[in-house]
Every structure is written in C-alpha cells, then in structure tokens.
C-alpha cells in the first residue's frame, strides 16, 4: 500500500458525492470531509490485512477493483465511486477479507476522522444511518426470499 496525494480536495469531493453515503449531504460538507481523506494505492492482488492502517479506514474507490470475500465466497465487488470498510471503522468486525484484484486507487477516511465528521455534520450521520438501514433491509429481504423458497 502506498500513500500519496494527487487529487485536489474538490476532485475528491466530486468523487465522494457520487456515493450513496454523501448523496443527501450538502456539497460544502462533503468537501469538508474530503479535505480529511488521504489517497491510498494498492497493487493488483494486494490483500488489505486486518489490523493494517488501510483496514482502519473507510475507502471510496477512485480507480480499480477491490473484492470482499467471506470464507472464500465473493460477497461484493467494489469499483469506482463505491465505498468499503465502513463496519470495521464503526468498531464492528464483519469478518470480511479484502483484496485489490486490480491496481487500485482509493481515498480513505480514518476511523477517527469519520467519527469527527459524523459529529460535525448531522446530515452525514443521517445518511449513514439510512445507508446502513437500507443494507439491513436488503439482507432481511434476501433472507425472507430464501425462507420462502425453502418452504
């Protein structure tokens, strides 16, 4: 993993605005959060080891592909404009393994900065709750669909 800045705050903000998490947050607040991010680069095949600095961050992919696997099962493929790493940052171990399958470039917000952003910008906190609730609903729907099929 390499850390180095090539994007301006505004370019990072534009990228963050594409994610669902920031859709309802005002542009200046997004820029405020963007100013706290750092750029990280991962080589193709690089694993984001648990406990590494990269795993203590919420990432949004600028370029490349990162895959999330649970016990060798692919659960998510993260591409440009998509985020990953939210649950560990919130202190919840999701047990997911992360690997950059292509050379990947992300902007990363550390756990501490994320908590600060949540405290400073209630709209961001609201969007995060909505995003998590939406994910939970999706999981419940899938479980119910599976239950119906098995019945």
């Amino acid at each position, binding site marked *: 993993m390499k850390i180095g800045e090539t994007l301006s*705050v505004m370019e990072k903000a534009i990228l963050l605005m594409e994610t669902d998490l920031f859709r309802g947050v005002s542009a200046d607040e997004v820029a405020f959060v963007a100013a706290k991010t750092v750029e990280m680069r991962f080589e193709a095949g690089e694993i984001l080891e648990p406990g590494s600095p990269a795993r203590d961050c919420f990432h949004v992919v600028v370029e490349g592909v990162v895959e999330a696997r649970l016990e060798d099962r692919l659960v998510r493929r993260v591409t440009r404009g998509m985020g990953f790493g939210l649950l560990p940052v919130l202190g919840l171990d999701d047990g997911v393994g992360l690997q950059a399958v292509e050379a990947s470039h992300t902007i990363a917000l550390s756990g501490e900065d994320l908590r600060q952003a949540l405290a400073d910008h209630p709209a961001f906190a609201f969007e995060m709750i909505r995003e998590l609730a939406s994910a939970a609903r999706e999981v419940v729907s899938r479980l119910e669909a599976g239950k119906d099929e098995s019945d």
Partner: protein
Amino acid sequence: MWRLVRREEWAVAGPLSLIYFLVIAGFTLGKIARDGLFLAELPAQYLPYVYIALAGLSALVVGLLAKVSPAGAPHQKLAVGLLVTAASLVLFSLWFQVAGSQAAVPFYLWSGVYGLTLVSMFWVLVSRRVDPRQAKRLFGVIGAAGILGGLVAGATVSLVAEAIHPRWFLVVAAGLFAGAATLAARSAVPPAEAAVAPDAAEEADRAPGGFLAGGYVRLLVALFLVGGMTSGVLDYAFKLVLQQQYADQITTLLGAFYGVQNVVALSAQLGVAGFVFARFGNRVGATTLAGGVLAGGLSTLVLPAGMAGAAVAGSKLFDATMRASLARSSWEFLYFPLPEAVKARVKGFIDVVVSRGSEAAAGLLVLLLNFLLGGSIGQLAVLIAVLAGGWLVLEVAASRAYGAEVGRSLGRLVGDREPRKPTLAEISGPEELSAFLRSPVAEEALYALDVLESVDPGAIRANAEVLLRHSAAAVRARALSALIALGEDGGSYEEPLAAPLTTIDEAVVERGRQETAAERVAEAAAATRLTPPEARRTRLRELMSDRALEVRRVAYRSAALSTDRELLPGLIRCLECPEDRGYVRQALVLWGERIVGALGDYLADPLTAAPVRHELIAVLQEIGEQEAVHSLYRACGPEEGSSVANRALQAINRLQERHPTIAFPQETVTQHLGAEILRYCRKLAQGEAVRSAADPELEKLMERVLSERAEQSLERIFRRLALVHDPRRSLLACYGVVSGNPRLRAEALEYLDTTLPSELRPQIVPLLEAASPEERLRAATQLLGREVPSLEQLLAELLESPESWLNACGLFVIGSLRLGDRHAQPQAFLKSGDPIVSDTARWALGRLGGTEAA
C-alpha cells in the same frame, strides 16, 4: 384573462366550464318556465306566500339532504343530483300536461330548491378540483361560462317562446341537466389531489352546535345573511322606484336592465376577474360590492329627489352584476379553508337556507318599515346604508379571518401536531440498569452510569453513596463527575468520599497534583475556591486539557462557575473536540447570559470553525434570553448566506415558540427579508449561468452547489418571515411550498398571498408560484432587474463572495475550464485561511500552468 390560465389547467377548467354552462342554462330555462306557468295559472298575490313556504322548504330539504345524502365524492353527488332533477322536470312536464294549474305551486317551490342546491353542489366540486391558487385564474372563466349559459337560454326562449308551451322548456332543461350529469360523473378528483380528513364531518356533527359551531362558519353565516338582506331591500327599493316613476315602462326597462346586467357581468368575468384576483387578492370583489352598495345608499340620501331613482337603479345594477361575477367568485374562496366534508354542508346551508332566509328577513324588514314609517325611498336608502355598513364590516372581518383560516387549514394538511416525547417506560430497561449501578463489576457500573445519566439521572442520585464508595477508582470518578454535572453539590458527598478520595475541599487542592482521575475530578470540582485567580486559572486550564474526560467535564463546569472571562476563549476552543462538546455546552449555558455578547462575537466571526459556530448556536438557544436572540441574529445578517445563518434562524424560530414575548425590529427584519429574496433570485440566475460552462462534471457540481444555496436561501426567507409573522404558520407554509403535494403547496401560497404585507407579496408570491423552472427564472431576473449573468460575471460573484466555499467553487471553475487569463485570481487565494480554498487555488494554478506550458 384567458392568458392567465395555464395550458395544463384547461383540462380542468374546460369540463367544469361546460358543466356550469349547462347547469345555468337548464336552471334559467326552468326559471322561465316556472314564472310563465305560475303567472299563467295563478294570480301574483300568491307569490309572498310562496316565498315564505320556499324559505321553510329550503331549510327542510337541506336538513334532509344532510341526513340522507349518500356517501360519495362531490362529482358523484352532483351527477346524482342532476339526474334526479332531470327526472323530476320530466315528471313535472307531464303533470302540467295532465293537471295544469295544480302543478304550478309545487313546481315553483321545487325549482326554488333544486336550482340553488345544484349550483351549490357544483361549486363544492369546483373547490375540490381547483386549489385556491388556480381558483384565482379559473373562477373568471368558469363564472363566465355560467353567465353565458343564462344568456343563451334566455335568448333562445325569447326566439321560440311564441311557438312552444313553457312545459317543453322543462324537458329541454332535463336534457341539459342529464348532459351535465354525464360530464360531472367524469370529473372525479384525482387521488393525488385528494387530501381529505375522512372523519371531519363526523367530528363536526359531534361537536356542540354541529358544523355551525366554528367561529369562522358563524361569521360566514352572518356575512351572507346580512349581505342577502341588503340585496333584498335594495331589490324592493328598485322595484318600488320602477313602479312609482316608470309605471308605464316597467317591462321595457326591466328587459334593458337584465340585458345590460348580463353583458356587464360577462365582460367583468371575461375581462377583469382573473386580473383583479391575481393583482388585488381574491377578496376584493366582495368588499367592493359591499362598499359600492353602501356608497349607493348614501348617494340616494344626498342626491336631489329626481336623481334618487337613478341612484337606486345604479346600485341595483352594480349589486346584480357583481353578485353574478366578481363577488360570486370572491365568496367561493371563503369555503376553501374549511375541511372537505364540512365544506359541503356549510355551503349547502348558506347557499340555500341562509340565502332564502335572508330574502325572507329582508321582506319582514320592509314590511316593518312600511308599517312603522311608511317606507319611502329615503327611508329605504337609510336602511340599505345601515345594512350595507354592517355587511362591509363583516366582509372585512371575513377577509381577515380567511387568512387565519387558511393557516389552520395548512396546519391540518401538514399535520399540525406537537412531537410526542417518549416516556421513560418506552426506553428499554432503566430498572435493570439501576441494578447495574450497584454492581461490583466496574464495567457494568460504568455502562449503567453512561446510559442513566441522560435517561434517569435520579437513579444515579439515589445510588450516590454506593457509587462513591465503589472499589474501582474509575467508577468513583465517573460517579462524582456525573453527580457534579447533574448539579449536585460535591461537598455533600464528603463523608462517602472520605475514605477513598479524602474530601472535596481546599485540602484536596492544597495537596497538589492528584494522581488518580478520581482525585483530579475532586480537585476540578473544588478549583473554583482556589486563590489567587491566576493560580486557579492556570490549574483549570490544565484540568480542561486533562487526558481523562471525567476530569475535563468537571473542569469545564468549574471554569463556568468561576465566571473568569479569561477562561472563556479556552472553553470555546474545547468545542472543537466532538467528545467534549456536550459538556462544554452545558458549562457555557451554566455561565449564562453574562457571556451572550462574547458568544455572539465568536458566532458572527467567519473564522470560527463551522462546527464550533453550530455549538454556539445551541448554547445561545439554550440560554434563550432576548440578548441571546440578538447575538444569534448577528449571525444571520443580510450578507450571511451560509448554513450557520440557517441554523441561527432555526434557533431563533424555536425560541420564538418557547418565548412568544421575544421581539424583533420589524423594519430591519423586513429589509433583511427583501435582501434575502434578492439573494435567492441571484442564486437561481447563477445556476442558469453555469449551464453554459460546457463541462458536464463541472456543470453537475456547480448545479448542486448553487441549487443547495438557493434552497438554503429559500428556507431563510421563510425563517425570516417567521420573525415578523405567525412563526408556526410561516414555517408550515415553507413546508407546503417545498412539498410535492400540489394541494398543500397551493394552500401554502394562498396563506402567503393573504397574509404577507403588500410590499413583500409581489416579490415572493410570483417566485414561488412559478409553474416551471423557466418561469421562476424569468420572475427572478425580473425582480433582479438584470439578465442571467455570463460565466465571467458568475466567476466574479463567486470569487468576491464572503463565503469561502463559493470562493473554492470559483477557483475550481477557473481550473476546470483552464481560464488562463485569470491566473492572478488563484494566486490571491493561495494563502487563504481555509484549507479547501488554498488547496483549490494551488490545484487551479497547476491546471493553468499546464495550459500555458502547452
């Protein structure tokens, strides 16, 4: 007038106009047949008895309809009413053929009831299909269609009357009503527009006094009763003048009179109704009528005897014309704010019972006048003037009550309820948590302290002794800190603290630096008593930056209790730490009104970090005195356009609700409101300017930025409005305007249109009422007095803005479009105190350098 109607509105206005044309044409045919058949069969002396019977029958029918009326939408009720009437007319036609004069009186009575009932039902349907804003544009067209229906029916009858027996007119009228019923059945209210409280009618019935219990409804009843009586007396005076002065020309004069009346009424509807309502408000027609009749009555008194007849005839023409056109439309507006289910009953009662009752009351007044004084034209003029004066007062009162009633209606539509606070019982497990407070396991006790401090502080007080004697120092420190934060006096815990902590007194402080967090908490609590002040200040500063939050929170409180203003900047700086904010806020509130001026200085300073400013707003809101409001208002002056201004105004609005006595300088707030409206217009115009940038990513960003700024500005417009108007309703209007519900939006606009001062109304209402973004932009540029700015002008405005975020956006535009000739501008922002601005300036210079190199 046609131009005022929007293209999409013709889909509603067209069928409604056609229905009204058919209803009035059928009604006119029935009326002509009624008079012809009655006068042909029976002497005119029977008429007064028929009038009295008609008033009684009307009350009976309305009461009966209220009891047996089928549940259904207004279009269904009108369709059924029209079909029943059509069938009855056919049956009456047959009865006349078979029985002749026997049917005359029953038909006279029936026609007196069905006509008014159908017209009333029709206007109830109109009020459901058309919102108050559309009504201003459409009532003129619909009313004109009705007048035209009357004219066409009258003209047709005059052409064929010689050849056809009047009973055949009933058959033709039945056909017209059947046609109108077919159209009415297809005029259902779209589900999206239906916003009805279904139990409103039942609630109204259950209330003491039924649907007449409301003050507004009673005012309407009084208004139409007095207005109808005035018109009845005027009608009698007019006929008396005709009889006394033009006995040999009555028929000719009446023909000319009704011809002129219809033509003038039609012209008024087609020519000026829409314009008058849009320009002067919807109540002007009715108040002008009452005022005009009053002026006519007074003129009759002061003019020479020879001219009195002309004055009476002029008044009558004015009354009849206005009643058929502008006033009629004006009165229809009064029913809009009533709940839907109640509206139909109130309207039916007023249109039929009150209308007939007012005619009967006018007749009784005339009889009384004739009996007591003789009933000369002069005496009648005095009576008319007195009645018209009362009528005018009631019209003005109704206009004022209408604005308030629209506000109430808006509240009903939005759901005007106070948010319910959750009870303790709804928050899970406080009893179990209380048990944890007594747990010897430190983690359990700490968890319970954390939760119960906000949910049930009484439990912490009740377990204070156990907690302060806990074997874990962390629990003791946390408990003491919580108790002090809850306002308990640390000294009262001397005994339990004695063993593990010594005591909270000077001895603790004198002993020097404390090793454990619990001891430092005790020291922080006692620090207010430390002397000299310099030593106290130094120690509190250290404790305010202690590594343990328990210590810091007590130190904040002690700093506030010390009232040492030297500690204030440090305390405000601590607001930057999210973990400590709540405690710092509590301390500042405890410090109270003595620091509101200083807090206002920090709040108004754009260099203070936005999250800190947000916290200061919360502190000032909590302090809540008039001075705190002034400090808050300093952050929302006319030049302030950031989210801080929105939050400060929001805090002020909340304080207004809590303390209605808080006052604002009306003139200053109105000036700022005007400036805010112009700012909103500028943001709309700037949003349009960026479309010419020819860079999709940049365009997307700038559209988002400027539309957010416009939305914030719009919110501030309403929040400022709330400072000088009814705060709750102004904010409900804001909600209504931005809501996607067209009915709610129309109610909100109607509320603004009726309550705003005349200098603001023409600025705000057209902007908010615009049907499309293009129309809104036109209204904005018209108000600004300039066209959409060029990209160059937009850049200048962004870079000169006091908001650093907009400066950054301007720099981003320069860099994105590689505007090489603007090299100096990013240079000037390189040393900006805002890291986003300086970063964007650097990035823009990099982009421009690339261009130049290329």
